[in-house]
């Protein structure tokens, strides 16, 4: 039977382990384009969207975390309580495609495809998200930095799938920004997510579409911590913000392609980093 119909997550794991060359289908917004336009011929398809457990998210108040099921669509992140708990995720979700795409596309699908331009991946990077990976015979928690391994590549092994993602609820400003050729329906030319941890006194900056994987600008982050006391609210000079952007851009390795040039991407991402830092200080 080429389309499998899992009745539960346990059943899904059985099917995954027992079926060679199975394609896990989340929202379909990537796989269907490959089928419609690029000649992909799916063998066996395993849709996960009908499993209620994967369409839910939960706030663990005591732990100060939020866990989001793989089949939660972008539309559910845009507004409401989840958007208040993780504002950068909401901002990134709002920039994805159109309302129709956001109603279908999911966090699990974004991780499964693992495009460098995936809009919520910089948010997961900046928040040091943990990906909960399940297999019939084992489970493992993978840090985002170990999950994405290259352009449309991740560290999932045969029989494994992304069940859910956990991110911390942070104290401090967080935001996402991207550059593209128009305001709606646009794939990122360059993107950035900045998370200010006002308790620890640290700023995390993740950059998208400027390297084979999402880049954490860890040297720029460390440099900034030496310039400013980042505990609580802080202020930043124009010169420091600009230098932060320059340093962040120097940690990227963009390419020139049909969407932009490497030089422009480097420039754009330095501007995004500067702006986000200024917003977090305002």
């Amino acid at each position: 039977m080429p389309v499998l119909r899992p009745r539960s997550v346990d059943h899904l794991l059985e099917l995954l382990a027992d079926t060679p060359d199975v394609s896990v289908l989340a929202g379909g917004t990537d796989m269907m384009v490959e089928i419609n336009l690029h000649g992909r011929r799916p063998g066996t398809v395993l849709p996960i969207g009908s499993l209620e457990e994967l369409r839910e998210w939960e706030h663990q108040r005591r732990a100060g975390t939020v866990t989001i099921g793989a089949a939660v669509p972008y539309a559910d992140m845009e507004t409401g309580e989840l958007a208040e708990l993780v504002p950068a995720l909401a901002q990134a979700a709002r920039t994805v495609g159109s309302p129709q795409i956001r109603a279908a596309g999911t966090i699990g699908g974004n991780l499964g495809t693992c495009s460098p331009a995936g809009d919520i991946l910089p948010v997961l990077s900046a928040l040091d998200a943990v990906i909960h990976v399940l297999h019939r015979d084992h489970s493992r928690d993978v840090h985002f930095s170990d999950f994405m391994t290259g352009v449309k590549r991740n560290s999932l092994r045969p029989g494994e799938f992304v069940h859910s993602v956990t991110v911390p609820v942070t104290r401090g400003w967080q935001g996402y920004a991207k550059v593209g050729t128009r305001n709606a329906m646009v794939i990122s030319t360059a993107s950035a997510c900045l998370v200010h941890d006002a308790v620890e006194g640290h700023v995390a900056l993740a950059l998208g579409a400027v390297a084979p994987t999402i880049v954490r600008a860890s040297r720029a982050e460390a440099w900034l911590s030496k310039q400013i006391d980042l505990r609580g609210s802080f202020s930043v000079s124009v010169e420091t913000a600009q230098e932060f952007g320059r340093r962040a851009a120097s940690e990227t390795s963009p390419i020139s392609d049909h969407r932009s040039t490497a030089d422009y991407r480097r420039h754009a991402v330095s501007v995004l980093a500067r702006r986000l830092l200024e917003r977090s200080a305002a």
Partner: protein
Amino acid sequence: MTRHSDSANESYRLNVNGSDREVTDAWVGESLLYVLRERLGLPGAKGACEQGECGSCTVIMDDRAVCSCLVLAASATESRILTVESLGDDGRLSDVQQAFLDAGGVQCGFCTPGFIVAVHHLLDRNPQPDDEEIKEALSGNICRCTGYGRILEAVKVVARGRTHGGAA
């Protein structure tokens, strides 16, 4: 389908416009758009970009407006699907369809079914949208004829009509 003889075929049931419809011997990779148009005799949803950019194929699936070209039909067996054909009563136009005609929001008409579905979906959830909300809700539907001004006007006419007693 000889075109796809390399893959095993599927038979399944879809719930479309309130009826269970049998789909037999279909290639597994067929989109919901293809199945609606070519197998179920529902050509209202239009196919253009086949990649979720244009919105011409918009349908309602489980109370969400989605691009039917991006739905694997065989995966939608547990969903309730509503197409543009389900709107309006007894062959009469819905208030949104009539307002599009009156306002000049229809020119070549190719994008119109997708817009009609998206506008019904918007107004069902938000009866009094402001201009920004209308533009955002329709940002996934592309029209190359009208310039959108008359479409925007049609939406506002319906919103006013529904609020002031229904008859638009």
